Structure formats: C-alpha cells, structure tokens
C-alpha cells in the first residue's frame, strides 16, 4: 500500500513536471494504474471481510478495464482537435496514415 501511494505521488510529480499533454497522460496512466492496483491489493490483504475484498477486487478490475479506454479517448480527441500544442516535432506517422483514404 505504501508502494502504491508512492507510485501515485510519482505520477503526480510527472504530471506537474512534464511538458505536453501526451507525456503527462503517459505518466499518469501507467504509474497510477500500477499504484492503484498495489493499494487495492494491499487493502484486500489487510481486510478480512468477504464483502470488502469483493468490492476492492471489483474496483481494481473496473479500473484496469476502463482506464486504457478513457486515456485512449482523450489522446485521440487531443490529436484531432485543433490548436493544442502536442510537441510532435519529429515524425508524425499517424498523419501519413490519415492522409491516405483509409477508413477511420
């Protein structure tokens, strides 16, 4: 649980320090998913009532299932929206792919 909280703190520092939206999203999603999982599993080991353990496990599974979907939606919306500085300045492969008449 302490390790999970420290990982969440690390995600917070990353969100404050990093430079653009995609890098911040990267720091938040990965570190915080592992952090929340560690906290919930630690709490499930510390508590002993079956109702509590079921709630903790259900919340962990829901977060693991929904967090990548939500972050993917945010990243796609940010990429498609106009006027957001994204920091993509090297090779933008997605723009080349989207230039071709492929189905979206």
């Amino acid at each position, binding site marked *: 649980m302490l390790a999970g909280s420290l990982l969440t703190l690390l995600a917070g520092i990353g969100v404050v320090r990093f430079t653009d939206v995609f890098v911040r999203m990267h720091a938040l999603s990965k570190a915080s998913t592992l952090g929340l999982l560690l906290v919930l599993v630690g709490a499930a080991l510390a508590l002993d009532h079956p109702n509590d353990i079921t709630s903790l496990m259900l*919340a962990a599974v829901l977060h693991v299932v929904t967090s990548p979907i939500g972050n993917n939606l945010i990243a796609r919306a940010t990429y498609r929206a106009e006027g957001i500085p994204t920091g993509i300045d090297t090779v933008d492969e997605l723009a080349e792919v989207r230039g071709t008449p492929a189905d979206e």
Partner: protein
Amino acid sequence: MIEGAYLALVLAAACFGYRMIQGPTMADRVVGLNGFVLVGMSSIAVHAVDTGRGAFLPVLVVLALVGFLGTAMVARYIESRGQ
C-alpha cells in the same frame, strides 16, 4: 506506514490539483481530474484499512465507473471544440 501512505496521497493530490488549475489546455485539466479521482479511490482504500471497517468500499466501484464516463464525455467535447 499508514501515515506515509496518507502523506504521499496528499502530495499527489496537490500535484494533480496544480495541473487541474494551471493546465494550459482542457486535456491537461482532464488528466488532472483523472489523477484526482485516482487519489480519492486510493485514499478511500487506505482509510478503510486504517479504521478496519469497509463501509465506504462500494464507493470505489462507483467512482471507477463515473470517472470513466466523465473522461469519455469530455473527450467527445474536446474533439468537437478544440483547444
């Protein structure tokens, strides 16, 4: 150990709050809001271990679902509005 977990969560909440207030674009604010929901879930779990009673633990399930729905809705809004 519980105190250390509380301290780390409070500092992380301060970081996410700074990003949510300061963030230049709306996507940054959504990232901060996601982190805030996450800190809330973690602190509910830590508090349940601290007091030994798990009356608030179903709130975790609700918070996971509501956080995802809010993120999806704001993503649609950003895509249509920009900035």
